[in-house]
């Protein structure tokens, strides 16, 4: 007799999941990515940006790069928007956007990629980023290696 609610099978599944979870932890520093999103872009825009929260339950790591399919953008870079040095005008500094080689993810810490700060810049968009669509981004971490995340296209963090 076949039962959909076989308690033994459920226990096995639960144990397997628990084992996988433990394995994930002992694997060390795999960073966890949450709330990944990219801003929708106008028809004629050439550049876009993606944002996310990266938390790290393990040892210190660093985001060292990101990539997307060539059908999405020609080039992907890690960038930071920040007040420009020496360009202060009273309380309203110039903002500049700089290419960064790495974004440090401290041990046990959380780093926000958010508007006005760190972001993943998509250059040479093949097509506009349309509201409600999804975008797969492959993140490269120094220690944890590659991690694929799905960013939702919209106009704010999900």
């Amino acid at each position: 007799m076949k039962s959909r609610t076989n308690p033994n099978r459920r226990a096995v599944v639960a144990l397997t999941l628990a084992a996988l979870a433990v394995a994930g932890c002992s694997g060390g520093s795999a960073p966890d990515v949450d709330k990944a999103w990219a801003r929708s872009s106008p028809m004629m825009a050439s550049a876009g940006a993606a944002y996310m929260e990266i938390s790290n339950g393990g040892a210190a790591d660093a985001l060292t790069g990101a990539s997307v399919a060539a059908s999405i953008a020609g080039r992907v870079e890690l960038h930071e928007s920040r007040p420009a040095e020496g360009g202060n005008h009273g309380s309203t500094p110039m903002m500049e956007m700089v290419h960064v080689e790495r974004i440090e993810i401290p041990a046990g810490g959380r780093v926000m990629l958010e508007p006005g700060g760190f972001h993943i810049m998509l250059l040479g968009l093949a097509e506009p980023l349309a509201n409600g669509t999804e975008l797969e981004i492959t993140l490269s971490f120094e220690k944890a290696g590659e991690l694929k995340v799905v960013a939702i296209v919209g106009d704010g963090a999900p």
Partner: protein
Amino acid sequence: MGSQILRVGLRVIAAAIMVAACASADDAALNGVTRQPALSVGDVVLPSGEGGSPQAMQADPNELLVVYFGYTSCPDICPTTMSDIGHALDQLSGSNADRVRVAFATVDPDRDTVAVIENYLDHFVGRGVALRTEDPELLSAAAARFGVQFAVAEHEADDLYYEVAHTAVTYVVDDTGTVAVEWPFGISREAIAGDLALLLGKESK
């Protein structure tokens, strides 16, 4: 019929409340930054749209002109600002939103054609005016009047990637050509909407 009368009635009451609110409102209620003395920019003129018709930095009567100096290849700061302004306009009543125009002055005319800027404004805010000049002195002088600084990295004419730094402040100009409030980068959509509603209330007094 009855509901229409009710709706009109509610609008009248809402308008009365707004007038009452504005009569007692002062600049301290604004969320953005105000300067003393107020900045006057009504005589600053930049070419607008495909035809390059002169656009003074002054709103039409009983309207507001939101002025921003940026560039459309900017993936982070500019679209965040434009998107927040667009959402703030959505929070206003339709008739109030129609009294706000957003002027986007490009600091990067090499990449930003008028068509690109207009498409950009359509995407984020709807009611916009594209400001573009190829005269660097005219642009710098106009920006300086607002206190805007910008720096465009050296590049070849057909380069697609180069960096631009710019003051990321949004200026709201009233129908006298006075900057009524300035919004620093990162101000919330609600704060923008609140300031616009307050200033529009004053304008119609």
